[in-house]
């Protein structure tokens, strides 16, 4: 089982989660974060609008889902297709992190691993 964490633009969240469900994910969760990657920060005003500073942190959303190994490529493709900006994409479209998950438990029934996904 693997955990797939996708950092994407916040306005893409709805299309990405639709694509995830279509690719076969049983569920996901979303959190709103700020962060910095290749995309440079955002310019904001400080001091009653008199001064400008660059904040490195940009708003993004992290969509996390845990799926069986066999779904990896389908899910990654679904995320990339639904979150990329146009054909060539733009800096700031995000990254996907894949990590192994050793066990999963369903709270309601106590089912484990593949039955719990």
């Amino acid at each position, binding site marked *: 089982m693997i955990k797939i964490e996708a950092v994407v633009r916040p*306005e893409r969240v*709805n299309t990405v989660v639709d694509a995830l469900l279509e690719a076969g994910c049983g569920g996901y969760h979303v959190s709103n974060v700020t962060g910095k990657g290749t995309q440079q920060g955002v310019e*904001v005003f400080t001091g009653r609008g008199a001064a400008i500073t660059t*904040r*490195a942190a940009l708003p993004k959303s992290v969509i996390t889902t845990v799926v069986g190994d066999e779904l990896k490529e389908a899910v990654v493709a679904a995320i990339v297709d639904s979150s990329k900006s146009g054909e060539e994409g733009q800096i700031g479209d995000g990254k996907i992190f894949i990590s192994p998950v050793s066990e999963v438990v369903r709270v309601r029934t106590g089912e484990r691993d593949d039955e719990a996904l």
Partner: protein
Amino acid sequence: MDSGNVAWMLAASALVLFMTPGLAFFYGGLVRGKNVISTVMYSFVAMGVVSVVWVLWGYSLAFGEGGDFIGNFDFLGFRGVSADDPDAMLFAVFQMMFAIITPALITGAFAERFKFKTYLVFLVAWITFVYAPIAHWVWAADGWLFKMGALDFAGGTVVHINAGVAAIAAAYLVGKRRNVDRGVEPHNVPFVVLGAAILWFGWFGFNAGSGLAADGVAVNAFLVTNTAAATAMVVWLILGNIHTGKMSAVGAATGVVAGLVAITPAAGFVGPMGSIAVGLGAGVLTFYAVRIRHSLGFDDALEVAAVHGIGGVWGAIATGIFAVGGIGLIDGDAEALVTNVIAVLATIGYSLVVTFVILKILDVIPGLGLRADDGEEDAGLDITYHGERAYVSDGAD
């Protein structure tokens, strides 16, 4: 100069001004968090820009004695409106607050996608070419609708129908927001309720001040304003429950505003039971108008046409029906109703066409244009046009 009148009218003017920031929060809570500053700013800057325009030429164009259709330049820069004739300046001050809030109402239609700098130009043009003429027709002593006897106590046509119809032109030209087909959840419901409450409070100045005196008419206007708002809220609560099983705070707040809009033209002319009828009609008509708007897929984002337009039209008609003292349909006199219908139609026609023309022109002027581009709309107008974020919790840097 009656000091009681002056005291009340100054207080009423301040109350009406307070409605504009109230509107800012009512609208602000309804949009997404990335656009709340922009939405608030549309209302807030109206207080700045329109105040200056009003003093320079707005009051003169609206209330100068220029004939049936428009004022003149007699009062440019408020010359001739001085402390020697305090009632005149008082009237001009009170009227300024109405001029401020009317264009701010329209912004609900194009929220979350309208270019801010274009909006500033729009404010100046709209006050000059739409608001001032209509205000002149209805409220200036030589205005043609005033002379015809249209009963519009506090601005159902001048403010609400005018803004509601301008909103239709604006929403049509600006186009639908991106990615809203699933519906937009208000990002801050308490703001919406707070805004509606401030509007309710300020509306006592709007309506009870429109008799320009601290007298029985004002007291009656105060009572019927409250009653209509309250009735419309209850109607929205009930209808909301019937259709969804729940009573939403946003629905309650919207009902309140609908009732207030509808009682605006009627406040000086109807009695308590009439105001219940006004509130009832406003609640029912605006509730279904909002549903119809949704099903049409027309993105008047914050329901300006459904609440202010439809609410205002009902208010004008209801005034003709329920006016007391022998002038209403309930007493067998249809004249006020007919005159009000004419006023409604004239306002709709003029506002729709001229607003459309103004926006069309602004759209093609190089450097202006109406709509934020896709990237700006996605990032949010707050950071794009104002360089600010409403809610900063990262603590980064």
